[in-house]
């Protein structure tokens, strides 16, 4: 057993930490969130240059290594800075899909430019009715004469507006909620028949609802085999869940630090907030939440790298526990700050918002608790 980071992992962590402290303070982030695109192309290029966009990919594909622990290192640091650049949508979601299912040619035309920062992707898997069941796919893909005709509606697609290409889950056979019959297809975002409504999420990330009306693509745009995509999709979503778990741990750490600092400065009734034992004990509980969250995150990342089939159970344990911690730490950080905590101007509220949305992405706390119990 070994709990230490490798030298590469330490360097990676330090370089992201340095970037955030130098180039990604709270005001810079706010300007990015408020900008037209919602992310900084300049930063994105920096990420590519520093090799961060290659982290979750195998060395054979030209990546950094591709371990879950590597991904965890990156996302935890991103969480500390509340980064809104579309790393999750591109590198984690779409990237894992490509890494697992793309053929050599697709890797050349999609994965390579993705790692170089020259291609924007989105992974369109959720639908208005599907909630967290990945096999609940109504979006249809009719295969005929070497073509696939897509119809349907994909919900809350991260990076859905900026994406050049979409990876879309469609039903090519079988009934809604059947595991067999789901396929993944690469679609150009400017194909005829695609319309979308873009928006900013409450956490500052960009997303869009996307409608497909008789969108036609060649069969060669299939990612992996037809009808057999469900396991790929599950791997992608579990990976994304791990990523946001790590992000949450980073965000919680900052929330805790900010709260403890604030209570040491802020006075009420002539003494600092930190001198109230009732608040002290609640902050101690926040600390334990962060530590337990960090522990189960490590467990899940390491289990994921073992490739022995226990990853989904471990991931569900982590998502469930970290969801609980994110809720507690987020809510308490606001409550202990008091009035100023609910204002837009203080960063702690923005950590709270992200800690909230993470609870409901890629399976809610309850969903993963039940999946764990049933496994």
């Amino acid at each position: 057993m070994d709990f230490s980071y490798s030298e590469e992992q330490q360097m990676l962590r330090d370089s992201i930490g340095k970037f955030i402290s130098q180039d990604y303070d709270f005001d810079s982030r706010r300007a990015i969130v408020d900008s037209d695109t919602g992310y900084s192309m300049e930063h994105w290029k920096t990420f590519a240059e520093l090799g961060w966009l290659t982290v979750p990919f195998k060395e054979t594909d030209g990546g950094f290594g591709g371990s879950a622990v590597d991904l965890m290192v990156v996302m935890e640091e991103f969480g500390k800075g509340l980064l809104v650049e579309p790393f999750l949508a591109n590198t984690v979601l779409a990237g894992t899909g490509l890494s697992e299912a793309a053929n050599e040619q697709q890797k050349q035309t999609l994965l390579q430019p993705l790692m170089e920062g020259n291609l924007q992707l989105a992974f369109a898997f959720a639908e208005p009715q599907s909630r967290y069941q990945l096999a609940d796919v109504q979006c249809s893909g009719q295969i005929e004469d070497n073509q696939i005709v897509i119809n349907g509606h994909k919900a809350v697609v991260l990076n859905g507006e900026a994406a050049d290409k979409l990876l879309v889950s469609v039903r090519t056979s079988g009934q809604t909620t059947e595991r067999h019959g789901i396929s993944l297809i690469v679609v150009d975002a400017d194909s005829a028949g695609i319309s979308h409504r873009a928006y900013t999420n409450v956490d500052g990330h960009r997303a869009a609802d996307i409608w497909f009306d008789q969108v036609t693509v060649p069969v060669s745009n299939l990612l992996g085999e037809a009808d057999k995509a469900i396991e790929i999709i599950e791997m992608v979503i579990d990976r994304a869940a791990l990523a946001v778990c790590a992000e949450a741990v980073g965000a919680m750490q900052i929330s805790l630090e900010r709260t403890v600092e604030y209570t040491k400065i802020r006075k009420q009734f002539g003494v600092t907030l930190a001198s109230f034992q009732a608040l002290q004990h609640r902050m101690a509980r926040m600390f334990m939440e962060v530590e337990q969250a960090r522990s189960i995150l490590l467990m899940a990342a390491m289990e994921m790298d073992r490739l022995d089939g226990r990853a989904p159970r471990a991931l569900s344990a982590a998502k469930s526990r970290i969801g609980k911690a994110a809720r507690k730490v987020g809510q308490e950080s606001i409550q202990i700050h008091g009035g100023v905590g609910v204002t837009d101007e203080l960063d702690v509220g923005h950590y709270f918002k992200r800690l909230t949305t993470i609870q409901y992405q890629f399976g809610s706390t309850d969903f993963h608790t039940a999946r764990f119990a049933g496994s």
Partner: protein
Amino acid sequence: MNIDFSEQELAFQAEVRAFLQAELPAQTSEKVKQGLRPSKEQTVAWQKILHKKGWMAPNWPVEYGGTGWNSTQRFIWETERTAFGAPEVVAFGVKMVAPVIYTYGNEEQKQRFLPDIIQSNVWWCQGYSEPNAGSDLASLRTAAVQDGDDYVVNGTKTWTTLGQYADWIFCLVRTGGPDMKNQEAISFLLIDMKTPGITVSPIYLLDGTPEVNEVHFDNVRVPVTNRIGEENKGWTYAKYLLTHERTGTARVAGSKQRLTALKAKAANTGDGGQVLSENPAWQQKVAEVEIELLALEYTELRTLAAVSTGKAPGPESSMLKLIGTEVQQAIDELNVEMAGYYGLPFVPEQLDDDYDGLMIGPELAANSAPAYFNNRKATIYGGSNEIQTNIICKAILGL
């Protein structure tokens, strides 16, 4: 001991329902049912309808225009009002400053201010909190120095809810010398917001709305005749008001209406081939909130019953505020959870009355996360829940 309504009470209930059925504007009630705040115009229009019926001020003594309702009638009114989606009246005038005016104000002040309040001609806001004071109201710094017939007021008030709409503000200001104890150095002033030297700047909350404000006073001249009661006795009046304010903060009827809406919606929310309302973890969570609310309803009824036998609303009102806000926030959170991925998009424009674009997400989803974020304030303002806990410790448990 029984919980049945009398014949008389049933007749009153029927009258209330008939009134709401006939008079409540549909667009207003729709907005309320979605958990949104009606516009200033919608609010004032509804309050004028209430006044016409004579129901604007159930909390006032009959001589000033109160309804003379007993606690059961008020309970019926709140229950029906909420079920129909009628907006709550804006508290700052009728529920907050008015009781202070009719209890501690002089005859001239009553004549001057109360009619405009009950007729909704004047919008009031509250100037209590200050930057860096938090729940510690007695430590305020906004100073009023007498100069002839006026006070000259300087300082800043914060967390002034809907101050952007307000015509008047009631303020706690420091009139005593620096050697005097805080609580014996404070006066209660009524200030016209149009007085030169007042500026209002919005504070944006986590849901992006400028619901609260900072109000800055720069050499603002306020006639001494606008002071309520005695100089340096303002803390007494404010404390009276704080207790007054806390009853009713349980918002039982509102939470019931929201839970009903939530349950109906969950029965139509997909969840892995089933519906969310059949999910056992969801059921348990909703049941626990519903049960807590049921208990709270009876805690409130017990308190009201005690009040109606002549007891003053005591420190028990702290418990109503505390549990009431916890239940509200639990419902806020259930709404976010129910929305699933559709809790994420922030599309405030689709909440506008005149929005006719494409809707993102199902009913109740669009405002779920913003409402959850915004309403974290519920356990902070009006005396934070920590302060309420301290009151229970001291005043009830003798700790």
